[in-house]
């Protein structure tokens, strides 16, 4: 058929019929708008980073180690001004969140996804965990205040020392717990049925199947979720203010690994940033200090993220 049709005339007709005749203007417009969205995002981020980096040079450029080793002061000109206490607070809060929220959250997710019966009660619980993840952080601050400071329940304030790094860490661990449960649960749900059946098929018990198939396969997903929740915890200021983070002047400056100071008065990087920005109205020097603290916080988060990404890649490689 085709060979008979392919004389010169019909070939020209076919060529003409499939020729490009119009420009896809709408497609082009759509693409341009999408590009603009990306550029706008990047531009805003760049402006933020550049101004912050520029403003921070007064502190980080001129007195780098003094700023990192310094403490909370009431005057911006004070040569002992710095973020050492804030680094101590943020670092230990992160560690406490990791130690408390991750095992409990992942454990709860394993139970909910793998063991709990599917019924109205469990879906009710799931919906509420999702709701909890959306509750404003200040509410968790109030919970921490009641639970850990005022000693209204169980007398926990004696254990945490009231307004302390420990209280801050526990409060933020409770804050991220629902996020950890939800993201881990999603990671478990993504484990292929074929893997589960394969394990059962050669005589694995439920626990062996979970330990050898579900957990390793879900590990990268869990890690991504916990990483997100950690970044959230590190950036929170409001709940920490409620559990008594110091914004003014803080005398003691514990060593970075001084466990004895965990139940003492504390501050953290977002608190310092908030407080110094507020004070910059009366004492302009605090503006550069706040910018420098922002840079420190960004580096802190970046370091944590790269560690988590490195771990995730290793898990993913293992998964194949």
């Amino acid at each position, binding site marked *: 058929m085709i060979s008979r049709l392919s004389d010169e005339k019909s070939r020209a007709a076919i060529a003409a019929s499939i020729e490009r005749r119009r420009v896809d203007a709408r497609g082009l417009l759509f693409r341009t708008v999408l590009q603009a969205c990306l550029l706008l995002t990047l531009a805003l981020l760049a402006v933020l980073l550049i101004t912050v980096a520029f403003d921070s040079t007064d502190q980080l450029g001129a007195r780098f180690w003094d700023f990192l080793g310094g403490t909370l002061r009431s005057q911006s000109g004070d040569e002992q001004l710095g973020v050492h206490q804030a680094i101590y607070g943020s670092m230990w809060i992160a560690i406490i969140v990791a130690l408390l929220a991750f095992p409990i959250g992942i454990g709860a997710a394993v139970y909910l996804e793998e063991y709990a019966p599917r019924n109205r009660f469990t879906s009710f619980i799931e919906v509420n965990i999702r709701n909890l993840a959306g509750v404003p952080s200040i509410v968790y601050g109030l919970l921490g205040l009641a639970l850990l400071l005022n000693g209204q329940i169980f007398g926990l304030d004696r254990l945490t020392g009231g307004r302390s790094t420990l209280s801050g860490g526990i409060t933020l661990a409770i804050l991220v717990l629902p996020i950890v449960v939800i993201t881990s649960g999603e990671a478990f749900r993504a484990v292929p049925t074929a893997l589960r059946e394969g394990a059962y098929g050669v*005589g694995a018990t439920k626990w062996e199947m979970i330990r050898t198939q579900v957990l390793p396969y879900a590990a990268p997903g869990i890690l991504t979720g916990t990483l997100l929740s950690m970044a959230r915890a590190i950036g929170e200021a409001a709940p920490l203010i409620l559990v008594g983070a110091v914004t003014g002047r803080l005398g003691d400056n514990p060593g970075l690994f001084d466990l004895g100071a965990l139940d003492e008065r504390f501050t953290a990087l977002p608190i310092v940033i908030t407080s110094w920005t507020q004070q910059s109205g009366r004492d302009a020097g605090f503006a550069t200090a706040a910018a420098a603290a922002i840079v420190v916080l960004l580096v802190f988060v970046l370091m944590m993220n790269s560690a988590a990404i490195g771990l995730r890649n290793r898990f993913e490689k293992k998964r194949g």
Partner: protein
Amino acid sequence: MSMTDEAPRLIERPVAAAAEPQAAEPPPAAERDVVFRSHDVNVYYGAFRAVRDVTFDVPKNEIMALIGPSGCGKSTVLRCYNRMNDLIKDARVTGAITYRGTDLYDERVDPVEVRRRIGMVFQKPNPFPKSIYDNVAYGPRVAGQKKGLDDVVESSLRKAALWEEVNDRLNDSALGLSGGQQQRLCIARAIAVGPDVLLMDEPCSALDPIATARIEDLMQEIKQDYTIMIVTHNMQQAARVSDTTAFFTADVRSENDTRTGILVEVDTTQKMFSNPADERTENYVTGRFG
């Protein structure tokens, strides 16, 4: 608790013990040893009855093929024999299935032990995201074996006709193997726990003809050691590999739009494909239906 250690118990249902074949209604396996015996098996998913009143015997050291159109419940039936349906929510099995005389659904039976004896190969090759070695050693490891794993891995891979192809890269990921190799690896993995029966759920449906031929040869080679049940959509495959064939079909009720799988006929493969007793079987195997 292993199952063959127990003396075969009589079940309250009208199922003869494995040792004494029924005289009244001679099953095709009358003079042979019987591994499985099912009697009036029904499988329900919630209120929906997926399979109705299935009764047949599975003879020892033979290959039994389950054939039939899609949705006739043959995979569902296969999964009854190693309690795989237990994993599906709301799935319920009634009737009696005995394995060497013991009721598989007795409450004293541990499904984990059942699955060690009655291995399974799935439709899509499902190697674990681990090394070739760890895939084969997985079953023995979860069973608590620590020593002699090298030997188990080698002999299982040899039986699965895969050893020559992979012995120089046992520590590579199993996911790097071709589809056919992956399926043979899954067979090796199932063999490694020393099962008595292999259940194969359309093991070649994701493979090309060459890989399929290798699996079929493999089945012939290992059938003196194992009893094999295979679900297949491919009638030529059933005719080529099996000794006995069971034909299932779907009983469609248009008034409430339900399909229930029923067993039409079981007989030697030769008879099923040349001179079946039931017209529905003949229509199916000659390609006039389904």
